[in-house]
């Protein structure tokens, strides 16, 4: 049995008396394409925040490739290969796409502290940045300032920034959220084109996307894992349908 790329054990967190994560146990094998679904307020983004270190858990542990990273800081987790994208675009509005991705690449290469040579002379960094952008079809708009990019391209830039860190595990928080239908195809192609060595966990609401990309689905309800299984199992599960369509207990 090989070590999972990312695993959590009994991960728990509460905001005052409101539990947002209850003893969550997840295990992502290398190369997995897992989807995390659940009604609004189930704690999906919270789980990602816990995994990436933006939130500290009250109890439980997180393992990256077998190593305990529970007390490791967020930027160190990224350096060890755990990256995420944000549900709401968290980009650098005043930088253009090339600068933004080049910054991420420079950080990874440990060059971001260098203050003498100009960015333009760090050829390998720039080459790598441009290549990432080109693969995501952002090459020709890479000189445009981020805040002027159309929304779909901004979502692609979200992904580009996280890819620049050369992650082994990538957590995608609703990658196609808010993208107009004519542009969402590009986003899905980008996700589909991601390397098979890369382990993916993505939060999605659109079931078509989930069934198209995921090999395994985890259902989160009220901060706890409700059930998990293959797409067909989940589709057939009446409990899942009830949680989504039924009594609306999570309002």
């Amino acid at each position, binding site marked *: 049995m090989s070590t999972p790329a990312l695993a959590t054990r009994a991960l728990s967190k509460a905001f005052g008396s409101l539990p947002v994560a209850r003893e969550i146990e997840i295990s992502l094998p290398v190369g997995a394409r897992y989807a995390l679904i659940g009604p609004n307020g189930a704690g999906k983004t919270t789980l990602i925040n816990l995994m*990436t*270190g*933006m939130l500290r858990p009250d109890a439980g542990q997180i393992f990256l490739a077998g190593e305990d990273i529970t007390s490791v*800081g*967020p*930027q160190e987790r*990224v*350096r060890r290969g755990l*990256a*995420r994208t*944000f549900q709401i675009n*968290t*980009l*650098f*509005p*005043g*930088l253009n796409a*090339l*600068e*933004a991705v*080049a*910054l*991420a690449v*420079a*950080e*990874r290469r440990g*060059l*971001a*502290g*260098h*203050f*003498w*040579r*100009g*960015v*333009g*002379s*760090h*050829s390998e*960094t*720039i*080459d790598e*940045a*441009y290549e990432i952008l080109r693969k995501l079809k952002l*090459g*020709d*708009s*890479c*000189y*445009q300032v981020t805040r002027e990019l159309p929304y779909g391209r901004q979502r692609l830039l979200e992904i580009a*920034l*996280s890819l*620049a*860190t050369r992650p082994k595990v990538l957590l995608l928080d609703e990658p196609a959220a808010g993208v107009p239908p004519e542009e969402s195809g590009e986003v899905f192609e980008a996700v589909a084109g991601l390397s098979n060595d890369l382990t993916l966990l993505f939060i999605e609401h659109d079931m078509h996307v989930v069934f198209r990309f995921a090999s395994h689905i985890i259902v989160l309800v009220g901060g706890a894992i409700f059930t998990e299984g293959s797409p067909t199992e989940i589709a057939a599960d009446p409990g899942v349908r009830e949680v989504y369509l039924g009594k609306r207990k999570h309002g």
Partner: protein
Amino acid sequence: MSSIAQSAVTTPHSYLQAQSRWHPLELAFWLATLLPFFVFPAYLSLASQIAITALFALSLDIILGYAGIVSLGHAAFFGIGAYSAGLLSKYGWGQPITGLIFAAGVAGLVGFAASFIISRFRHFTLIMITLGLGLLAFEAANRAHWLTGGSDGLQGISMWPVLGMFRFDLYGYTAYSYSLATLFIVFLGARRLINSPFGLALRGIRENWVRMPAIGADSRAHIRKAYTIAAAIAGLAGALLAQTTESVSLESISFQRSADVLVMLVLGGAGRLYGGIIGAIIFLVARDQFSGIAPQYWYFWIGALLVAVVMILPNGILGGLSRIYARWTSK
């Protein structure tokens, strides 16, 4: 737009390199700084003050305009530099350039120590801490009569000629040349810094604090580095003041100085490297011209200007100019 034509000609490398190329306006500006020698020789000491204050504003721009740290106590480093250079001369070593380096070193060291505090806080707490540290520095200088001369100021400073040749004269030729040269050299360094990966990281911190750790960046380490550099440059400016005026007063470490430099930087436009310089020129020339008016009326106009800048011209004068330029060229 023109991006299609642009991508046919530019490569990513050449695009980024073009960002750091000198614009003809910049060359014109620096040539214009030589004008006071020929056209306004009576104002050379004012010009020297402007160069020194511009250097101070430049140092604040690094942390405020680029890393986004609002400091209400930056004069602490200016004052530390001034007192260090003054004391060095008072106790026997009046060599100007080594004095500058010494003062920058002291200020930088103190800045380095303070940076461990500064880098851990944000927003209102950070503003209050910078204010508090600045006020503490002032009180310390005020109380330490035996070292700083307290409210009487530091006496007994006497500078040797610059490079062994240029005596500090009464008209200000040496003072202005010295200050201008220092400003220009440091400016070149700051320009390199801004165009480097580190400069990009600082802009990233300012643009989106949350994103930085998510791309593996250690924002605190970057802030510490920027703050230390800014402190050293501020100390350098303070030392210039001490040396060219051969005196140091409490004013150099006062809240007034911290507030004035903030106003200048915002007026000119933070985050544009030249904003502090432009702001310093306008502010000090105006203050000189209106020096007959009682101080509170002067502050009326400064207040009105600040309100105007915030409500109408968010990026200061340079920001407004670049917006006009962009609109003009896109027609």
